[in-house]
């Protein structure tokens, strides 16, 4: 069957009985992220009957559907036809994106794995803070937990594998790092990524009219502040921990 041969992208594969996945690449890149966001937007516009919902991951678009009203063959044909419509790798980013400057403590007891990550990247802690604190990253996708962003792409020096053992618990607002990305945690959770920074961002506010702080395409910088500064900012601004937000002109 040649099941282990190299994939040719974009590729359409099944996810269980009720899902189909359109994957644009097997590694992170600017074009594949553009393709992912653009293709999902176009798919949502098509409003295919029998499709229950769509979502993106880093380089894929997921379609959940009801096979009793839309067969696998029918959906696959629709997806193939949409793929052929345009060069999705050159699609433009979503409108209405925002830029966030997020005060962040690197290291200390609030983010105890900075030293470990710096070691793995071959840097001193100070160099790691300079590098991570200056990186402008984009929300590549939202996932894992409510409103939780995967952010990238960091430089090749940050292509660190996940840990084999889980960090038992990182708190809400934790900035963790692996494989040229950050994840900013919505709620306390265990993780295989390294806890390098801590912010005061509260990403999911179910009691609010708009409960979701970030959108795919938003850009962020995690600016270094002292431990004392973050504690003060968090006190004064319990939702955003002092983060400053502005519109990105399209």
């Amino acid at each position, binding site marked *: 069957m040649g099941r282990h041969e190299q994939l040719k992208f974009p590729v359409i*594969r099944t996810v269980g009985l009720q899902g189909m996945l359109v994957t644009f690449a097997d590694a992170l890149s600017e074009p594949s992220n553009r393709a992912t966001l653009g293709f999902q937007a176009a798919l949502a516009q098509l409003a295919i009957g029998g499709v229950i919902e769509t979502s993106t991951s880093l380089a894929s678009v997921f379609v959940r559907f009801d096979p009793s009203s839309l067969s696998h063959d029918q959906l696959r044909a629709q997806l193939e036809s949409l793929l052929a419509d345009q060069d999705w790798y050159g699609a433009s980013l979503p409108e209405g994106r925002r830029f966030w400057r997020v005060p962040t403590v690197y290291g200390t007891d609030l983010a105890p794995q900075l030293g470990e990550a710096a070691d793995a990247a071959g840097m001193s802690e100070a160099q790691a803070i300079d590098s991570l604190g200056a990186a402008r990253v984009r929300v590549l996708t939202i996932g894992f937990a409510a409103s939780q962003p995967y952010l990238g792409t960091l430089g090749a020096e940050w292509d660190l594998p996940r840990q*084999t053992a889980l960090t038992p618990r990182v708190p809400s607002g934790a900035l963790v790092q692996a494989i040229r990305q950050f994840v900013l945690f919505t709620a306390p959770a265990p993780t295989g990524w390294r806890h390098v920074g801590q912010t005061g961002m509260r990403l999911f506010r*179910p009691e609010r009219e708009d409960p979701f702080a970030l959108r795919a395409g938003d850009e962020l910088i995690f600016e270094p502040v002292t431990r004392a500064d973050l504690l003060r900012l968090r006190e004064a601004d319990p939702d955003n921990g002092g983060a400053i937000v502005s519109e990105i002109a399209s």
Partner: protein
Amino acid sequence: MSGLRVLQVGPVVSVQDMGRPGLLERGISQGGAADVLALAEGAALLRQPPGLAALEMGGMGGTFEVTGALRIALTGAPMGATLDGVALAWNASHQVAAGQKLVIGAARRGVYGYLHLGGGIATDPLLGSRAVHLMGGIGRAAQAGDLLPAGPDAGSETGRETGLGITPEDRFSGGVLRIVESFQSSLFPDEVLARFGETAFRRGGRANRMGVEMISDGAGFSAAGQLNILSEVIAPGDVQMTGDGKPFVLLRECQTTGGYPRIGTVLPCDLARVAQAGQGAALRFDWVTLQQGLEIQARYDAQVTSLPSRCAPLVRDPAEMADLLSYQLISGVVSAGADPFDTGDNK
């Protein structure tokens, strides 16, 4: 208002319905009842739509005071239940009156029992559903002092359509889980895929509404390049291998994406069997093709649709029974599991 006042409650008790489809792109999995078949059984017993909310009780129920005339039904993992000290049949519907005290004990088999109210539990919906999503931080587990209000129910005063029973599909003791290959199955060597289907598993100690650990003797089940693959979408039923090659079957309240590779996806119709397996229960995975999986699921969906016609009055005159052995012999006093001769559940 009719409803139940929670006097005392187990630690993993929460209001659940069919969950929140449509929020995957916001990072929120559908969630909802761990055993959606039990939701459908309760709805069939009360002759109401299956989308109404019920109380899901993990391992242990609680003590409830009835605040107004109400119909209730009990489904899912069989638990001991009494109304003012008199035993109530499980997998059945009952009429209760204001001031009565309902006590639901520990699960005798399985994990999640369900307490349904006529009219459903009418707590305030959040983001389109009443389901508590513990992992997503939506709502919280039930606590002593909570009021569980019932929605409008024409039968609440008359007890219309109570005293019905249903014989549930036995899904409370482990068994065989049908699994299809998924988009990451090819990351696993053929030998590992084959061995996975031949291995005897038992449910491990780590299990909750997000997922259930499977343990086995012998080597783990690892994929190539396991620690560096891109995080990718997760569907309920996905069997995820953690760093040490140990499988977790993910349930409806799972995370929406994850970086650990998935060896395959358990059919939706077998997920209740995963959620309801008690610690140590024997489980095994049976690979089926996509086409076989679709047919199995379609047959199951048809069975769920036919549930209302399979509810029957609890107390029957044996002389009126066409086929005595096809009925579950519930006396109306003592509850039974699916097997009427399983004396382990009876006194």
